[in-house]
């Protein structure tokens, strides 16, 4: 179960749980000498993105420009930006590190993250675009009482975003310390300040283009590594797998295992391992990964940046294609690292562990196939990745505060675009400050649970609310608020009672909730409570809610009255 939790963390956002542990053992000990090539390349990336931000700032005048780039992003561009949100440094470093350690299990997580996309397309993407303008709450509250539903959606958005953000900041600090040799605190502040520049001045236009540039760089770099690895085996995956099994067997033998045990350790990397121990955790995690994707606010927000439903569906196709391709590369990279990194004493410490921590497998592999300059390039791309993801998260949190809480709930819709924009920018500054402070406070925390928690929350609260408000006539204001709150509270409560918090953080001997992820209970509970409360709801508002369904349904199916590229 610990293993599952760690896996989620490594995969989902940024994770670096191993680095956290390494740090906890030897504070500061993992810091590397300053890598000037990497720093130079990173400086180049920062200059480029600041240039993009300047260009974007001139185009960012209204709230619509700020939140959704004026709806002027194409399907292809948006697909790449979405893929960029998913290809975080953790996906790249975390999954390849997990494959390096456990082999096949890493692929299971990759698959979990990918399969949410078809679901999102078939059930939600076009409807989201047709009904919403700036935030997913626009859609969730479409026919309901605005104040309660938007308040719920904003709270849930902020919780998901904040946990994701802290995990990214902690991961960023650790990664940068390892890659560039900068102190942790500096690294967190640099990420926070740069991200603030992008979001504050360039809004969604800058955030999207920084994400696109980074996605292109990361895909290119990962392709290069994967091809270089395969080339060493005459482009035969079988030969690569065979050599990886041999390496793992030799390593086990070297540690004193008997030949049979060593052979089993070797072949274990080609089969499911850590997932097996507990079926409930496996299914629960599978649910959180798949449905969490369809409930992450910073992902849903991207569907409002394209001009129409057709572009929304094209975005998902491109995103799914790029993400799938990326996970394929990561699989090869993980096995490549077993073969090329685990056998080279230059990358290992005296105990045979990776220098710089468990997440450095792909980084060392980059050096093994591309030398110092490519290592610098990969390091810079990894940093860029964190910046881009953090910027998207912050923008999503800011829009929940300014658009949902301030403009819709507090000012009841009577607010002009300029004022809403000002509130949004102030929120960006506040969120950035919170992220920096929490990032520093949480330095030595295991970030594992934060990312898995963000996914479980999104699957348990946002996904049921969105799905039923879109597809079920009987759904009412009271139903979605009660059900969404149930999912939120249950996901939070079960996570606190789970091994990662109850035992590891709070020091109790046995967990009250023994499974790795809450989703298997919290998500169905949210659906059930929405159904139950809506069905029993006899209020006057419920009649309005149900009465508004047909018109909402027609709008969501046809795009009639949808906010267009030019008018919003």
């Amino acid at each position, binding site marked *: 179960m610990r293993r599952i939790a760690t896996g989620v963390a490594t995969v989902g956002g940024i994770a670096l749980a191993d680095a956290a542990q390494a740090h906890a053992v030897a504070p500061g000990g993992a810091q590397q000498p300053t890598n000037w090539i990497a720093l130079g390349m990173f400086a180049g990336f920062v200059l480029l993105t600041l240039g993009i931000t300047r260009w974007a700032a001139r185009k960012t005048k209204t709230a619509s420009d700020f939140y959704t780039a004026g709806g002027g992003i194409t399907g292809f561009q948006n697909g790449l930006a979405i893929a960029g949100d998913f290809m975080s440094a953790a996906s790249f470093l975390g999954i390849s590190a997990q494959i390096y350690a456990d082999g096949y299990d890493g692929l299971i997580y990759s698959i979990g993250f990918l399969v949410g996309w078809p*679901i999102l397309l078939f059930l939600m993407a076009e409807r989201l675009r047709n009904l919403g303008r700036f935030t997913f709450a626009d859609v969730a509250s479409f026919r309901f009482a605005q104040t309660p539903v938007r308040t719920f959606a904003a709270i849930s958005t902020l919780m998901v975003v904040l946990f994701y953000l802290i995990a990214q900041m902690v991961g960023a600090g650790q990664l940068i310390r390892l890659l560039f040799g900068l102190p942790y605190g500096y690294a967190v502040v640099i990420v926070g300040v740069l991200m603030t520049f992008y979001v504050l001045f360039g809004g969604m236009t800058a955030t999207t283009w920084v994400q696109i540039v980074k996605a292109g760089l990361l895909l290119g770099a990962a392709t290069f590594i994967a091809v270089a690895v395969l080339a060493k085996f005459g482009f035969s*995956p079988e030969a690569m797998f065979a050599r990886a099994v041999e390496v793992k067997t030799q390593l086990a033998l070297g540690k004193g295992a008997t030949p049979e045990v060593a052979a089993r350790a070797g072949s274990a990397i080609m*089969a499911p391992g850590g997932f097996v121990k507990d079926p409930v955790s496996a299914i629960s995690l599978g649910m959180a990964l798949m449905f969490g994707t369809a409930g992450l606010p910073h992902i849903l927000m991207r569907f409002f940046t394209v001009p129409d439903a057709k572009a929304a*569906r094209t975005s998902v196709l491109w995103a799914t294609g790029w993400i799938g391709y990326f*996970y394929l590369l990561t699989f090869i990279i993980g096995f490549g690292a077993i073969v090329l990194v685990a056998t080279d004493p230059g990358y290992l410490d005296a105990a045979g562990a990776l220098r710089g921590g468990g997440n450095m497998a792909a980084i060392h592999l980059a050096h093994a196939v591309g030398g110092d300059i490519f290592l610098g390039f990969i390091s810079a791309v990894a940093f860029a990745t964190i910046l881009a993801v953090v910027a998207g998260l912050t923008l999503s949190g800011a829009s929940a505060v300014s658009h949902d809480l301030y403009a819709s709930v507090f000012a009841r819709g009577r607010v002009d675009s300029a004022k809403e924009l000002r509130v949004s920018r102030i929120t960006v500054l506040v969120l950035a400050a919170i992220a920096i402070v929490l990032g520093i406070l949480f330095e030595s925390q295991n970030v594992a649970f934060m990312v898995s928690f963000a996914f479980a929350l999104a699957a348990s609260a946002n996904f049921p609310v969105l799905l039923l408000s879109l597809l079920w006539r009987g759904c009412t204001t009271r139903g979605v608020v009660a059900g969404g709150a149930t999912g939120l509270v249950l996901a939070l409560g079960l996570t606190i009672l789970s091994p990662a918090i109850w035992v590891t953080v709070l020091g109790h001997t046995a967990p009250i909730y023994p499974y790795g992820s809450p989703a298997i209970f919290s998500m169905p509970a949210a659906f059930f409570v929405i159904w139950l409360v809506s069905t029993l709801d006899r209020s006057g508002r419920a009649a309005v809610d149900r009465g508004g369904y047909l018109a909402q349904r027609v709008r969501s199916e046809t795009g009639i009255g949808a906010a267009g590229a030019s008018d919003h």
Partner: protein
Amino acid sequence: MTVTVQDDVLEQLAATPAYRHLTRTRNRFAAVLTTIILIAYFGFILLIAFDPTFLGRSIAGGATTLGVPVGLGIIILAIALTGLYVWRANRVFDADLAAVLRAVDA
């Protein structure tokens, strides 16, 4: 701002044959594809949870196990189903939708 269409116009539209045809075929298609990906993914997870050795079997006696093509197969299936939906939506559903919208204008 967009031209406001009254809700009663939309409700009338919902009763037209063109609208009913579009939504029925599109939603049925989406439901079928959703079911396929759910079965594929949770089948995979259940297989791992309850019979982990199955995917660890060697293919043709080599190092490559059954898990590799199955895992990659799900990735490819996810992309293929997404592509299939977009292809049909672009070719068929968009044209049907255009017909529905012409009825509103008229």
